[in-house]
């Protein structure tokens, strides 16, 4: 995989040829003004629905492995 990644990296280095100081960057190609959605109540997922895909659940909560490594 390393040699493949190098080949791709070379190909994408070319963009620096034209990306000069005076060119502004584009994040979203269709710029929109930020707006607030109407403040209307909506029904979110139920707890059971939200947990329906959990690898492990207990008492209505996701169960995660411990965060720290010490015994």
């Amino acid at each position, binding site marked *: 995989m390393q040699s493949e*990644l190098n080949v791709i990296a070379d190909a*994408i280095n070319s*963009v620096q040829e034209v990306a000069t100081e005076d060119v502004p*960057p584009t994040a979203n*190609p*269709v710029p929109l003004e930020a707006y607030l959605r109407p403040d209307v109540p909506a029904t979110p997922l139920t707890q059971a629905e939200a947990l*329906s895909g959990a*690898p492990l659940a207990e008492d209505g909560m996701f169960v*995660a492995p411990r965060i720290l490594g010490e015994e």
Partner: protein
Amino acid sequence: MTDTNELVKLSAVQMAELLRKKEVSSRDLVNAELEVIDAAEPTIKAFLKVAGETALEQADAFDNLSDDEKAELPELAGVPIAIKDMIVTKGIETTAASRILEGWVPPYDATVIEKLKAAHMPLLGKTNLDEFAQGSSTEHSAFQHTSNPWDAERVPGGSGGGSAAAVGSFEAPLALGTDTGGSIRQPGALTGTVGVKPTYGGVSRFGAIAMASSLDQIGPVSRTVLDSALLQEIIGGHDKRDSTSIPEGPRPMVKAAREGMNRDLKGMKVGLVEELGGEGYQPGVEARFNEAVKKLEEMGAEVVKVSCPHFKYALGAYYIIMPSEVSSNLARYDGMRYGLRVMPPADVAQTAANMMAYTREAGFGDEVKRRIILGTYALSAGYYDAWYGSAQKVRTLIIDDFKKAFEQADVLISPTSPSTAFKFGEKMDDPLAMYMNDIATIPANLAGVPAMSIPSGLSDDGLPTGIQFIAPQQRDEVMYKPAAALEAALQDEWNGPIWQSLKTPWLDSLNN
């Protein structure tokens, strides 16, 4: 009309017409497509999941409506559709063709699925794709290889190879795809079908599994231009759940497509993009393209050459922006709330971090890992400005190229894909060769402009070729008119649609 073989070859518009005349029911249509799916799937393998029972229930729900209720629905109501497995469907397993989502049944519908359900269009099932839509051949699916209906030893393109193959083999009259760098249009070209990438923000992405959020767009797959126009008007429009959704409603695309069918393009200026052609394009692809250009001229269009000098940097910019956004988006697959969880072996600390590492190692395929590595690197401190920052600047230059081109022409054209369908395995060891498949389709994603591919004929190898139409942002109707005109002119010359030349042994077995 009860002959399955005839029924499934109709366009969606023709099926809808039979529904209105009560010559068939929606249940008849779904049953016919399910028969074809049964017969074709052993070879085509376009579907990851067939949802026959729920499709029949949805068909019955339509059939039971009163005439008045039906009259209120969109024109394609009651016509079945297949869904790329990159779009979430409540109650139907959704995997993005990845082991990491295997078995996941979403608790909610994508906005486009809600709209299809409101239009009473039965969902036939979920179609195959490259894992997380990353690829151009559908070979990167974790589950199966989809065959091209034109040659079972060749790929259907990608990432939406399943949707294109399903529509191309008559397993469905319509499908939805997602297009980040060409994943709707390139499979369209390789399978002789129509594929449309709408303006960025024209169709809600809520419920489309995120790949590269500033490029992704859901769009129609069909066998005719008019069918795509009708479908895009159904799925398009504003959605408050997608912050990039355009506030204005869908453009008048159906009207434009119907106008185009009159084959009068007088007053229209068509721009040939000089940078998208020539070296690297198969002679057969170019020959069919040049003939299509002549047809456009014969219908009154004025063809001008336009230059987009920064397109040569599009592939490089795309392969910075796309993996960067992929690496960020796919971080959500952490084995915590849904999807695969693989715990480390007993001699390794049973921590959350180790669980994530083992889960991702087992759950992601090579191409997805390659892009996450590239993207993480491109976004890392010290490289961000040189790579991601530069790529965003190239994006501005490409948008400017399009702006200048659209000052000279109403619509732009190019071949969709440089080659016809290639054989399985041919490009799997050479990522860069695989990436070149999207050389002509990527600029539209970077600039957010709408683009579509329609069949332009058959190359010397007997395989379909595609021509791409590109229109200005938020003016999707502009490409539908010449596309529909060209489709009509070519079908006139061929004495029928391109699929007349397609051998369909799976349909022959249905005759009795």
